[in-house]
């Protein structure tokens, strides 16, 4: 049953539920307003006497491992998504759980993918109660149509770490797909036939779950070097033929956008960094693996070369383009959150300057700082941005779940946050009066770059001053919006959303930022 809890208005003016899946919630209080208290969560104390002295923790199959971990009704079980749409382990785990006859599991992946749509049947048959983690494609539709029993909870990568660490979500059993592992449970992701690069998303699960199972298709004799997952946290190791489809784990090559309009957006972003002086010796930036972001990196590295500028570090989503920068001496380091293509996987496996990171180091807001706020500039996408610079990444303009938050919210902490977006998609304007689903507060979004001009948040007078003499088309956001509405034949009708919550969007501090409403 969905909570029939009351709704309250949070500090962003959004109506949010006070209870989510039986747990009381704190409505969003504003940026940096919520003060957490208490101590971090911890796992039970274990003893070496319960684990084999020879370090061999192998069991024959996943079903046995789950049984030995004491899987039962209502537990929280988790996976990471470093194998992306190629992952086979999550469904293997869920199907093994089904065979064991357990019900009402809370599946807690760091993200779900369309290839895992079989989870819908497991929700219908009662094996899974609900999913907390990003949902898109068929799973997203299932949730937005109100068919899931519990509420979806959308968290950023950093927010997921925060929720686990703060004890909001207690993982009973974590099942970690590992491209390489030893029988003790040490594991890493950069080698083996299913190599995916960093395993950072699985670190919180391995540290905070009561029980941890490593599943690998590349078992090496102890020690597995380097290890990112420590075997000392691992209960069982399961060897399988294949943890995933390599073709879907990494792209052979990542492609820069070929759309001239999007290339224009990318070029504007790069020129913006140059003209504001953000691009200077020792600076840092982060860009994802989307078409515009890749093109931005391509333009920026050319400008860096021309001006003789070198970055201290770049953050990925790593791709061939970042790797080429590293190899060309345009950056000292890549601090890598996820590894997207073959060149990047090869690089992280062999180049000590290409370093795997985790949501703890990079994104966790409830830590003693995180890398995110030390990055000079970040380039992100969005489905919508409004006149107050609020951003939406989780839903389509019609309210259907589109994609997860990923690191998007966490990246807003950067020195200069840039949304690089086309001004309209298929006639639908991207700049709107008010975002459908608030994912990022406008006070943290500094610049919106479109092919028709660049809007700077009036809060950032320093940036406005920095581009005073630039030839870039700096325009008020209202002006770009009006122009696009003229082109599109008027302002679009605002779709009517349902009245029943189907998911909530958490802010980086665990408070509830917005609600996703039932559609269709």
């Amino acid at each position, binding site marked *: 049953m969905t909570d029939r809890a009351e709704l309250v208005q949070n500090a962003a003016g959004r109506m949010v539920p006070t209870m989510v899946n039986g747990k009381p919630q704190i409505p969003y209080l504003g940026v940096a307003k919520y003060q957490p208290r208490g101590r971090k969560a911890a796992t039970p104390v274990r003893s070496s006497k319960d684990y084999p002295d020879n370090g061999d923790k192998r069991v024959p199959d996943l079903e046995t491992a789950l049984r030995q971990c004491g899987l039962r009704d209502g537990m929280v079980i988790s996976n990471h998504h470093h194998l992306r749409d190629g992952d086979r382990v999550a469904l293997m785990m869920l199907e093994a759980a089904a065979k064991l006859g357990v019900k009402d599991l809370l599946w807690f992946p760091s993200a779900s993918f369309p290839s895992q749509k079989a989870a819908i049947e497991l929700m219908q048959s009662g094996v899974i109660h609900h999913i907390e983690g990003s949902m898109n494609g068929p799973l997203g539709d299932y949730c937005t149509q109100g068919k899931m029993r519990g509420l979806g909870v959308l968290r950023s990568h950093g927010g997921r770490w925060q929720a686990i660490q703060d004890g909001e979500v207690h993982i009973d059993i974590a099942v970690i797909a590992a491209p390489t592992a030893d029988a003790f449970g040490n594991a890493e992701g950069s080698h083996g036939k299913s190599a995916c690069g960093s395993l950072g998303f699985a670190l919180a699960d391995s540290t905070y779950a009561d029980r941890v199972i490593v599943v690998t298709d590349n078992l090496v004799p102890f020690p597995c070097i380097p290890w990112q997952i420590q075997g000392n946290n691992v209960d069982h190791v399961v060897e399988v033929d294949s943890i995933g489809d390599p073709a879907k784990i990494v792209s052979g090559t990542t492609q820069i956008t070929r759309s*001239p309009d999007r290339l224009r957006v990318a070029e504007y972003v790069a020129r913006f960094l140059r003209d504001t002086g953000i691009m200077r010796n020792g600076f840092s930036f982060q860009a994802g693996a989307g078409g515009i972001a890749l093109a931005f990196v391509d333009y920026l590295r050319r400008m860096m070369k021309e001006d003789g500028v070198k970055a201290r570090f770049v953050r990925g989503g790593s791709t061939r383009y970042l790797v080429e920068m590293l190899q060309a001496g345009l950056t000292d380091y890549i601090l890598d959150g996820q590894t997207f293509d073959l060149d990047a996987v090869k690089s992280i496996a062999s180049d000590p300057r290409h370093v795997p990171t985790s949501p703890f180091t990079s994104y966790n807001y409830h830590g003693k700082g995180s890398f995110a706020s030390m990055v000079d500039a970040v380039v992100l996408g969005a489905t919508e941005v409004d006149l107050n610079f609020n951003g939406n990444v989780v839903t389509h303009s019609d309210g259907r779940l589109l994609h997860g938050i990923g690191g998007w919210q966490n990246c807003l902490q950067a020195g200069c946050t840039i949304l690089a977006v086309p001004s309209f998609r*298929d*006639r639908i304007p991207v700049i709107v009066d008010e975002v459908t689903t608030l994912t990022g507060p406008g006070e943290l979004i500094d610049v919106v770059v479109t092919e028709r001009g660049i809007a700077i948040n009036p809060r950032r007078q320093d940036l406005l001053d920095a581009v005073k003499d630039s030839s870039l088309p700096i325009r008020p956001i209202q002006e770009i919006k009006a122009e696009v509405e003229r*082109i599109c034949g008027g302002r679009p009708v605002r779709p009517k959303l349902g009245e029943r919550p189907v998911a909530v969007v958490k802010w980086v501090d665990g408070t509830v930022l917005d609600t996703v409403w039932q559609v269709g």
Partner: protein
Amino acid sequence: MTASGQEKSAGSGEAGHCGRDVRSDLHVAIEARDGGGLEITMQSRVAPYYGESILAHARQVLEVLSIKHARVEIRDEGALPFVISARIETAARRAGLGLGRKASPERIPLPEPSPRERLRRSRLYLPGSEPKYFINAALHEPDAVILDLEDSVHHAEKDAARILVRNTLRAVDFGKCERMVRINQLPMGLEDLAEIVPESPDLVLLPKAELPQQVAEIDRMIGELKGRYGITRPIWLMPILESALSIENASAIAQASKNVVALTIGLEDYTADLGVAKTPEGRESLYARSRLVNIAGAFGMQAIDSVFGDVADVEGLRRWAESSRALGFEGMGCIHPGQIPVIHAAFAPSQAEIEKATKIVAAFEEAQQRGLGVVSLGSKMIDSPVVQRAQKLVELAKRMGTA
């Protein structure tokens, strides 16, 4: 799905495109009926936002076309209003409905008339049947856009492209770009003119111009249409020379109308006509291109080069454009926006050229002030043609924003 599709009975017609990979277009099928009013069905990927607006728009267009009884089926992929009007009008005409009526969108203010000698370094080709390329073309800042009705438009789509280009000229803001249209060869070109001249394009490109009479006929037709629609601003002509014969007749073609402001060459057809391979160095067309430059110079008009076909080869484009400028051309065509900055850089005078020319102009002005008949710079005497060339170059550099 395309407009061709299966055969339809009389009184029905379809136009436009739809499908997963189609953007900014729509497919319209109209079937006339004897009574029962209008029955409009619509599917659209933007239905939640613009569904009502699309239906209202469709009704309005059908009313303008005086269509009272018909079944209309719309499958929209996010088309902008001027495209919706064009596709409905095309489907109606194909169904034999609304003949003699136009569902033109409201006209945005016309830009300033185009001066005869304006910069024409780059002209971006836009296929006349692909509306998705129109709306942002000017953002890439070519000197001109060409709405193409000729080679990039399938024979069966000529009528549709004509209507779409007409609406585009009315509704799309091309900023500072010169608005060019490439019409079809005669006689089809005359139908093109009837549709587009009322919308005041700045320049008409005449493909495969071989004889001065063709140019004269088109010029006469444009003049007649301008008179009929009360248009006083110029519509310039740029003949495209695409055969051995046309190169031989270039002089007569250049003189066929006072509205000819530039000559250009189409190298694909020219090399095919000669039966030689088209090479990246272009030696096979050196004579033709040099002759074109010379004739253009003789009659005070611009010589504009062909297009460079390999979009991925930026270095090859740069080399071609630089040698093209060295031959005396003032611009060339683009088939992708990415080619524009490369071409503009290649056709810009170098910093050294600008500095030298600026010094010559300054020396000339000083000599004028001092009443001297002879201009000298250092130990050198400067001839008057050199001064004129320097003045022209400084002026050009100013317009390009490089001086």
